[in-house]
């Protein structure tokens, strides 16, 4: 029970008043941005990245993790009461949740989603506790060639499996990889793609790209389709206490959703959309009252909400143990690690045991806080939904500007931010996913580094990637992931309906 002992030490770290405060700030902020349309965890954490220069790593990551988990809880409130999913992972919740709210059962829908999130979040965090050390043992055997193969696999899965088109996903990814290449090559000191602009020598800051795509691009997109009418907010009706029947119909979907969400999140494919859709269809199939689906079936809220939160927990496993981010938020968190000079990966659990286990313990505590924040205090968040869109989006742009301009006070960065924002608008309009840009930008340089190390070790022998059993296996998996959906498409004309969204899960 090594992990258990470590976890107890983690609680000692997380339960100090200062860290509890960070956890509370994070979960509150996370819920708020989850509730507000137009704001997501990747954007929020990107804007808060400068905090890494001021506070110690444990505190910063407790804050970021609180935001990450909180956004998952908050997003469901918006889905249920407004029918406009705040997060891409809560699309499915809107299907049944909004119908429940319309028939006066908003309270029960919010309760089953909050309690389900709590159950899934807690089990998912337990999953991290016990799975992470196993992955670490395994990952210690990895060489640079294996890491490179693993990154290729992640590239393929985040682009080809998620979203509606592998080509568009890949194009977004390659654009991100190129952005990541800009600046001085750390190994040789050569400047690459700087076009003679001295500001570009240090590379493009991920904050600028994330804020440009997720705040500026999103605001432009919403503005282009916004017709000054207000969305209908369904008043909070119905008791927050679930009836005996609602409990009976909820607990199994929670557990099944968790069982789907955590493993899929923990795979290098990541992403919360697929497990939520799978959970929805599974519950529909297993339900004793399938006729209620489409008219407000509580199982259709309970299952996907649990799957969503469990996969959010799962994504942290490859992030912490392998340094492999599979969502935009995880990629931004990885850049926070880099800003501290910490390299996530198997050695993290040895060298930064206090940070890792403090973070995991804070996830347990954060889940409890979020349950309180999202049930008894739900009225507060409903009020936030009433902020008029003009003020909300104007505020988002002002904040985006401060966050970016504040880093260097350079108008060049601001111009770059707005240009990337314009690009983000076009990407939304032409159905390109945006998350692969961020993942490519963060993971691209790491892939290059591992590639070069592998080639140096093998003395320039290209076959090294195919002769090592681990990397060969992973490369085969990557090939399957790339070709698999196509092959499946030939087999059956029906495909998993995974609608691409803003991609900021």
């Amino acid at each position: 029970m090594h992990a258990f002992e470590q976890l107890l030490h983690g609680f000692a770290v997380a339960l100090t008043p200062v860290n509890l405060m960070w956890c509370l700030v994070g979960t509150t902020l996370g819920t708020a941005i989850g509730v507000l349309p137009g704001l997501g965890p990747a954007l929020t954490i990107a804007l808060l990245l400068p905090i890494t220069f001021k506070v110690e790593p444990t505190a910063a990551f407790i804050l970021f993790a609180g935001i990450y988990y909180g956004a998952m809880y908050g997003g469901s409130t918006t889905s249920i009461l407004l029918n406009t999913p705040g997060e891409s992972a809560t699309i499915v919740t809107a299907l049944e949740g909004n119908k429940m709210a319309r028939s006066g059962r908003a309270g029960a829908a919010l309760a089953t989603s909050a309690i389900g999130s709590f159950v899934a979040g807690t089990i998912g965090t337990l999953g991290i506790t016990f799975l992470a050390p196993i992955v670490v043992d395994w990952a210690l055997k990895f060489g640079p060639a294996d890491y490179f193969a693993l990154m290729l696999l992640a590239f393929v899965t985040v682009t080809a499996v998620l979203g509606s088109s592998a080509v568009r996903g890949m194009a977004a990814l390659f654009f991100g990889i190129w952005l990541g290449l800009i600046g001085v090559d750390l190994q040789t000191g050569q400047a690459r793609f700087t076009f003679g602009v001295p500001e570009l020598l240090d590379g493009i800051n991920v904050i600028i790209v994330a804020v440009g795509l997720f705040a500026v691009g999103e605001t432009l997109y919403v503005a282009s389709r916004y017709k000054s009418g207000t969305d209908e907010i369904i008043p909070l009706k119905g008791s927050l206490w679930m009836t005996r029947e609602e409990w009976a119909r909820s607990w199994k979907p929670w557990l099944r959703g968790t069982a789907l969400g955590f493993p899929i999140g923990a795979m290098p494919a990541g992403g919360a959309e697929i497990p939520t859709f799978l959970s929805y269809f599974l519950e529909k199939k297993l339900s004793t009252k399938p006729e209620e689906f489409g008219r407000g079936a509580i199982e259709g809220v309970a299952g996907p909400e649990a799957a969503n939160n469990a996969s959010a927990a799962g994504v942290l496993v490859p992030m912490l143990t392998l340094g492999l981010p599979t969502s935009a938020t995880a990629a931004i968190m990885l850049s926070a690690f880099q800003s501290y000079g910490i390299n996530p990966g198997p050695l993290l659990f040895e060298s930064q045991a206090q940070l890792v286990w403090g973070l995991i313990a804070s996830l347990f505590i954060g889940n409890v806080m979020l349950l309180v924040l999202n049930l008894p205090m739900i009225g507060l968040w409903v009020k936030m939904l009433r902020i008029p869109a003009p003020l909300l989006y104007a505020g988002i742009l002002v904040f985006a500007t401060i966050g970016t301009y504040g880093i260097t006070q350079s108008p060049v960065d601001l111009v770059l931010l707005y240009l990337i924002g314009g690009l983000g608008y076009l990407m939304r309009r032409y159905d390109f996913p945006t998350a692969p840009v961020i993942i490519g930008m963060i993971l691209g340089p790491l892939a290059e580094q591992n590639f070069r190390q592998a080639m140096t070790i093998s003395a320039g022998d290209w076959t090294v990637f195919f002769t090592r059993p681990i990397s060969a296996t992973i490369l085969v998996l990557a090939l399957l992931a790339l070709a698999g959906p196509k092959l499946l498409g030939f087999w059956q004309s029906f495909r998993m309906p995974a609608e691409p969204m803003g991609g900021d899960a």
Partner: protein
Amino acid sequence: MTAPQVIEPVSQPESQAASPRSGLAVGEFCIALGALALAAVILWQTFEIPVSPLYAKVGPTVMPLFTAFGMGLLGALLMVSALRGGWQTDDEKETTPDKVALVWVAAGLILNVLLISQTGFALASIVLFVCTARGFGSRAIVRDALIGLAFALVAYFGFAKTLGINIGAGIIENLLERVFFGSTPN
């Protein structure tokens, strides 16, 4: 983080959404052209990177070359798709973007860049705030300007000062700083 959009209970499978179209899709054509142009720029710039013979094995140009070829291939695939009628979903194709709204927001952004180093963050933010709110249909300019100012100041004193990032202070900021803290920054 997504745009408000109404969700239909049944998501359309891709095959249905991309109903058979023919002919050139102009928007998609431009996007594909942009991707190809980017690939060409990457390739051209890659040859500008000096390579020291010391690093002949995997030098600084290997990954850029890979990126250039990848981007080129994807651009070509996008071009094929654009020539065959494009890939935009029907919903997106039928929506005409609200150009007036876009111009207002874009104007706010451009004015912000021009003003921020001249007049300081607060004034530039007010302009950005008012323009954006106008783009979203708000007509209450005075109210928006006041909210924008309050927002900018909260951001300046709360966010920036706590995070220790320094935003270009201007007339309003310095005045308030003197009133509250008795000194001028920098």
